[in-house]
């Protein structure tokens, strides 16, 4: 940019360092002026950035919470209460962390549904999609183990139920579960290792996010039209999308902190303010809301092994979605049938979420079974068949074409 003769001392030091470790250039290529992004990205594209922001919030608040948390069955519950009552701003850190998990999942679920709607999982972004699913799985493991740490009734019985799923595995199930527990029930060794893993996994997620962004940069960002984008339809990520993402984060934070400050326990279960009691199961066990659809699928099937397979399968099946979807049109905007099918699928996920929170009997159980059946019907049958039979709308040749007058 500047001639060597005009360089300031600061610029010389900067260049000297960049030649040896081009970290600023690296960031500039990743999320800066050197990353060209489609110019038509809508607000749904904010949620990747928001999810990354929430990962940072969770990590920072978590590190400071860990300084006051004790991972022992005799002290864990009281140490959390001490954080709430005695530690300076401990209530803020804990409420930010507990509700932060919920808002992290909100951001990620919107991010995933955005990918589903605009076909971001299709070629050439299959590996990007896979890494995203791995991030989701790592998040679920982290969230589950984090929920065990306060050592309330829901912590204990949630841990018992989830780890007991592995007993469904034929022959070796019990041995695996004993290994996970480090004993013959959820107890001190389980709590201690869950804390260790809960601290570890976020850094695994950071690594996966790095690969996610790397894989994103090979083909570049998808866009609401789902078409391949030429250079003239791209604008630099910075400042255009950094500003837009910052705005999106600001709006997201309004909702997040409204809950943190005014309804910090709205998303939690009161039973978790009762200390864990290995001799008494609470009358109504439910997981956190972000696990409810999967929980509903588990309970929809009246067979232990098949229920567990269906539950894990509901996520694992997403790994082959790029091939289950036989249409080569990415954006559902141009797919008149699939668009509505996908909206019904989202409603089905909402239905499963509701069913997961109800007692598994009567209407909720029936609805849960219908919902679970539709979930797999949609992915395994309707998605490939509609892809074959549907006539898509004509695609625009470029992002600019529909808005530019033909004369230009």
């Amino acid at each position, binding site marked *: 940019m500047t001639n060597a003769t005009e360089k300031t001392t600061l610029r010389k030091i900067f260049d000297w360092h960049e030649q040896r470790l081009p970290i600023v250039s690296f960031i500039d290529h990743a999320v800066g002026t050197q990353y060209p992004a489609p110019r038509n990205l809508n607000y749904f594209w904010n949620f990747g950035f928001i999810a990354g922001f929430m990962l940072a919030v969770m990590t920072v608040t978590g590190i*400071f919470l860990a*300084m006051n948390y004790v991972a022992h069955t005799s002290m864990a519950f009281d140490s959390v209460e001490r954080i709430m009552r005695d530690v300076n701003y401990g209530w803020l850190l804990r409420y930010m962390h507990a509700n932060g998990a919920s808002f992290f999942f909100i951001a990620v679920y919107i991010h995933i549904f955005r990918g589903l709607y605009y076909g971001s999982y299709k070629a050439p972004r299959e590996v990007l999609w896979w890494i995203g699913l791995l991030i989701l799985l790592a998040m679920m493991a982290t969230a589950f183990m984090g929920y065990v740490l306060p050592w309330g009734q829901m912590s204990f019985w949630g841990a018992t139920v989830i780890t007991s799923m592995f007993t469904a595995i034929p022959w070796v199930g019990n041995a695996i579960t004993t290994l996970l527990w480090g004993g013959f029930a959820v107890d001190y060794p389980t709590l201690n290792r869950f804390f260790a893993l809960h601290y570890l996994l976020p850094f695994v997620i950071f690594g996966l996010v790095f690969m996610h962004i790397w894989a994103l940069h090979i083909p570049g960002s998808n866009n609401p039209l789902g078409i391949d984008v030429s250079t003239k339809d791209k604008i630099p990520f910075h400042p255009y999308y950094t500003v837009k993402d910052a705005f999106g984060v600001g709006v997201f934070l309004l909702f997040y902190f409204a809950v943190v400050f005014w309804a910090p326990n709205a998303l939690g279960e009161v039973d978790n303010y009762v200390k864990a009691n290995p001799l008494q199961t609470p009358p109504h066990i439910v997981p956190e809301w972000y696990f409810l659809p999967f929980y509903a699928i588990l309970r929809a099937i009246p067979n232990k092994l098949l229920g567990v397979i269906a539950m894990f399968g509901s996520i694992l099946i997403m790994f082959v979605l790029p091939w289950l979807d036989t249409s080569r049109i990415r954006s559902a905007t141009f797919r008149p049938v699939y668009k509505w099918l996908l909206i019904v699928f989202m409603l089905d996920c909402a239905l499963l979420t509701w069913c997961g929170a109800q007692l598994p009997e009567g209407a909720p159980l029936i609805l849960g079974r219908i919902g679970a059946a539709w979930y797999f019907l949609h992915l395994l049958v309707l998605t490939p068949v509609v892809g074959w039979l549907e006539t898509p709308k004509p695609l625009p040749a470029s992002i600019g074409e529909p808005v530019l007058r033909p004369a230009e």
Partner: protein
Amino acid sequence: MANTAPAHPTHAGGAAGETRRDFLLDMTVATGVVGGVMMVWPLIHSMNPAADTLSLSTTEFSVAGIAEGMGITVLWRGKPVFARHRTAAEIEAAQKVNLAELRDPAKDADRVKKDHENMLVLVGVCTHLGCIPLGMKPTDPRGEFGGWFCPCHGSEYDTSGRIRRGPAPANLEVPPYSFVNDTTVRVG
């Protein structure tokens, strides 16, 4: 919209740093910085002593059972506090020291409570690097000045707990304390 926006909107309104866009940028950055700092403080403050830690900040103990020439060590805020019942000779030695000789000049009278000159109460932490000086047990070395001797780096304190030799820069600290009655001391 998209087809009219130039790649870099110009500073139409005036020189650099004076446009509406610059103002918005400054406001955005300022808001982010203020918000960030407001969030950093709770994080840092959470590492300061918590309410339950602060509530342990006073300790009461009885000095009735301490024979002349003996002392006890009690725990106050996680640190040792020395209470030594000084002999008449020790008090006299402490009082007649020439203040000009001291590294950290302080009168013995200012380091004890009036009418309780025989009871010396000190924070038992060497002012050099935090070790506990020896001298509370009869078998401990007390250094040349008859008070305390720090085993870590050899600082020597006199019978008023003042630094006399070695690397420590200051006298042993006198904690805030009072006599609740003739035989009970409250530290903190």
